[in-house]
C-alpha cells in the first residue's frame, strides 16, 4: 500500500510561527552581535568584529569556557551512568519499586533555585550536613568549605546537578527498557549468558535510542547551566565557577547588549560544534527493532 503524503502547505502555519519566533530573532541576534548595542547609547552602530576581538582577549571567557565544558562533560557522563544504573535497578521486581522511582525522580520536579538554596545549607562548612556527617564517622578532617574553596566549588555544583537530573535520565532509560522484548534476554539467559553479557550485548544496544536522547539533552542542557551556579556560588568565589550564562548575565546587566549577544553566539556555536557530532555518532549505533 502506498503511503499517503500530506501536501507541503499543511506545514506552513507551523513553519511561519517557527520562522517568526525562532529563526528571525536568532538571525537578528547574530546581527546585533556585530553592533555596539548598549542600553545607555542613543544609537546602535555596526562595529564589525570588535565585540569578538574584545571577547577573545578577555580572560573571563577562557574561565567560562573551561568551566562550562568541564561541567557539561561531568554531568553528561555521570547523569547517564547514575540514571542507567537506577533504571536497571528499578526495572527489576523489587518491593516498593514505584515509591523508589518517585523518590529518584523527585529532585527533577523541584525548581533548581530551591535545590540550590537547600544545598547551600547542606554544604555549609560549619553547620552543613556534609561536614557534620564526615565528623560523625570520624572523617572530620576531610571536611571542606565546599562552595567557597575554588578546588571544590565546581565539583560541588556538579554533584548537586547530578543529584537533580539523574532521575530524569532514569525515567527515559526505564521507558527504553520497557520496550526490550523479554524473550531476548530470557533466551540469552537460558543459553547461559551472564547478567553483564546480557546487558552488554542485548540491553545496551537496544537502549541506543534512549541513550541518544539522554546524552544529547544532557550535553545541551548542561552547557546552558545557569540557575544552579547562580544560586550556589554566583560564579564565585571570584570568577572560579564562572560559566557562560553567568558571564552573559554579568555583561547583560551592564547594559552591553551587543557584547552579551556576541558571547551568546559563541555559546551557540559551541553547543552546535559539540552537539551535532555527538548526535551523529550516537544515531549511527541505534538499532532498529
Amino acid at each position: 500500500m502506498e503511503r499517503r503524503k500530506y501536501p507541503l502547505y499543511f506545514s506552513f502555519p507551523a513553519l511561519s510561527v517557527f520562522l517568526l519566533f525562532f529563526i528571525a530573532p536568532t538571525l537578528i541576534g547574530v546581527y546585533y552581535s556585530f553592533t555596539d548595542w548598549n542600553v545607555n547609547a542613543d544609537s546602535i552602530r555596526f562595529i564589525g568584529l570588535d565585540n569578538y576581538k574584545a571577547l577573545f582577549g578577555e580572560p573571563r571567557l577562557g574561565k567560562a569556557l573551561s568551566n562550562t565544558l568541564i561541567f557539561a562533560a561531568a554531568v553528561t557522563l555521570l547523569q547517564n551512568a547514575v540514571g542507567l544504573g537506577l533504571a536497571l535497578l528499578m526495572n527489576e521486581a523489587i518491593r516498593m519499586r514505584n515509591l523508589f522511582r518517585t523518590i529518584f525522580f523527585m529532585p527533577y520536579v523541584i525548581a533548581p533555585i530551591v535545590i540550590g538554596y537547600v544545598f547551600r545549607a547542606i554544604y555549609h562548612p560549619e553547620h552543613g550536613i556534609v561536614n557534620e556527617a564526615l565528623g560523625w564517622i570520624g572523617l572530620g578532617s576531610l571536611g571542606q568549605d565546599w562552595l567557597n574553596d575554588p578546588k571544590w566549588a565546581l565539583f560541588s555544583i556538579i554533584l548537586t546537578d547530578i543529584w537533580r537530573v539523574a532521575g530524569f535520565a532514569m525515567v527515559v532509560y526505564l521507558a527504553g527498557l520497557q520496550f526490550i522484548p523479554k524473550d531476548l534476554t530470557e533466551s540469552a539467559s537460558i543459553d547461559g549468558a551472564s547478567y553483564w553479557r546480557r546487558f552488554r550485548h542485548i540491553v545496551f544496544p537496544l537502549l541506543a535510542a534512549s541513550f541518544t536522547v539522554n546524552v544529547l539533552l544532557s550535553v545541551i542542557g548542561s552547557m546552558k547551566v545557569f540557575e544552579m551556579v547562580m544560586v550556589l556560588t554566583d560564579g564565585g568565589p571570584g570568577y572560579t565557577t564562572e560559566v557562560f550564562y553567568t558571564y552573559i548575565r554579568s555583561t547583560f546587566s551592564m547594559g552591553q547588549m551587543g557584547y552579551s549577544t556576541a558571547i551568546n553566539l559563541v555559546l551557540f556555536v559551541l553547543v552546535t560544534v559539540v552537539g551535532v557530532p555527538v548526535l551523529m555518532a550516537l544515531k549511527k549505533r541505534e538499532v532498529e527493532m
Partner: protein
Amino acid sequence: MRKSRALASVMVLAVSAAALAACGGGNGNNNAGGASSPAASGAASAKPAKDPVTLTFVISNTEDTTAFTKIFDAYQQKTGNKVELQALPGGDYDNLIKTRFSTQDFPDLFLMQPGTKQYVKLRADETLHEWSNEAGVWDNVIDSIKQAQVQDDKIYGVPYGSTGMMGVFYNKDVFAKAGVNPPTNYADLVEIAKKIKAAGVTPFYEGVKDAWPPQVFYYTGWVTQVDPAIGDEGVAKLNSNALKLSDIPELKDLFVKQKELKALGLYQDNVMSGTYDEMQNEFGEGKVGMTFMLDGIISQLEKKFGKDFVAKSVGFFPFPSATDTGTAMITPPNQLMVPDKAKHAAEAIELVKFMLQPENVDLFYANKPGIPIFKGATSELYPVQEDVKKYIDEGKSKVNIQNRLTPSFVDFSKTLQNFFLDGNIDKAIKEFSDNYQKDGKAKVLAGF
C-alpha cells in the same frame, strides 16, 4: 502495589506543591499594563479611592521594611489602596531593577540607592517621573539634601530615610572583655584586634560569600585616606577618566591593609563562607568584636537582639587614619522613584506625598531611627548614631565615593572574593580600575 503507588502519587504532588510555592509568590500586580497617566499627580493628599488598587513597592532585602509597612498600613486605612512589598536580593538589586525596566515590568514604586548616578543607570529622562515642580514634595526636605538630587534642573528621585553611615561597628561588651577602647589611629586598630583575638573572640567578620560586605572596608577607608590625598579635584578626574584608580597609591594601600588583616588571622575562620546574616548573629552573640559595615546592621541587630542591645552594646568609629580617628563616611538617603509607565503611577505619586506628610515621616523615624533629612522631624537616635552625628557636626564626615562618581565599581565584589583567595594586590587593583573604566565606557560617559 496499590499502596505504594498511592504513596508515590501523594509524594509527587507534595513536592510539586512545595516547589511551586517556593517559586511563586509576590507577583500579583506588578505587570506593566496600560500605563495610567501620572498627570493626576497633582492630587493634594491621599483620599479614599473609589476602586482600591494594589501598588507594588520594591525594596532591597538589606533594608528593614518595618517602618515602610507601618506607613503603608496607615495609607491603606486612609485610601483603601494596598501596598504589596517586594524585597529583592540586595546583591543583585540593581540588575533586577534594570532587568524589570528592560522588560517593561515596572514596579509602581521602588526604593533606589542615593545619588544622581542612578538617573544614568535607569535612563531616568525616558523612564521615571520627574519631581522638581511637584507640589507637596519638597516643603520639608532639607535643602542640601534636595540639591544633591538635582541634575540638569531635573529630579527623578525623592529622598527618603536618613543620612546613612558606614564604618566600623563594634560590640562594646567584647571591647570591655578584652579591655580595649576605640582606636586612636590605624596601628592602634590592629593592636586592638590582636588583643580581642587573644581574649578568644574573633576580631573582624567579613561576609565574603555574600560578596558585597568586603567592599565596605574600601569605601570607609576611602574617605579617611584616599580623599585627603586626591581631593575633590581627583574625584573630578576620576569622573572624566583623567585619573586611573590603579594610579592612586593610597587606594592600593587599602588592599595592603586588608591583606594584612587576613594574614594576621584577624578575620573569622572560613572567611570565604561568611555571610551578612551570620555576621549579625555572631556579632550579637559576642563572638565577633568588629565589622566594617553599613548602618543597615542597626535595624537588623535590633530585630534579632532587641533595642536594648543596640542601645547599650553597639558602638561605631570611622576607619582610622595613620594619625587620627579618621573621617566618618556618610551616605545620602535612599530615594523613592516612580516609573512613568507603572500601572499605578498616579497612585504611587500620591503615596509618596502621603509618606512625606510630617506625621508619617515621624512614624517612619519612630520605627527606623536615623539622622533625619526632613525639617522639623525628630528621631530618637541610638548612641551608635549619635557617634556619627558628632563627626558630622564637627565637619569630619564625607559622602561615600560611590555617590560622587557616575561610573560604578562594577564586579568589585568579585574582585575582592578573588583577592581574599589569592592575595594578589596588583591584580586586584588593576581589575578594579579596568572594570570602573569599562562601566564608564558602557554608560557612554565623556572621557571613557
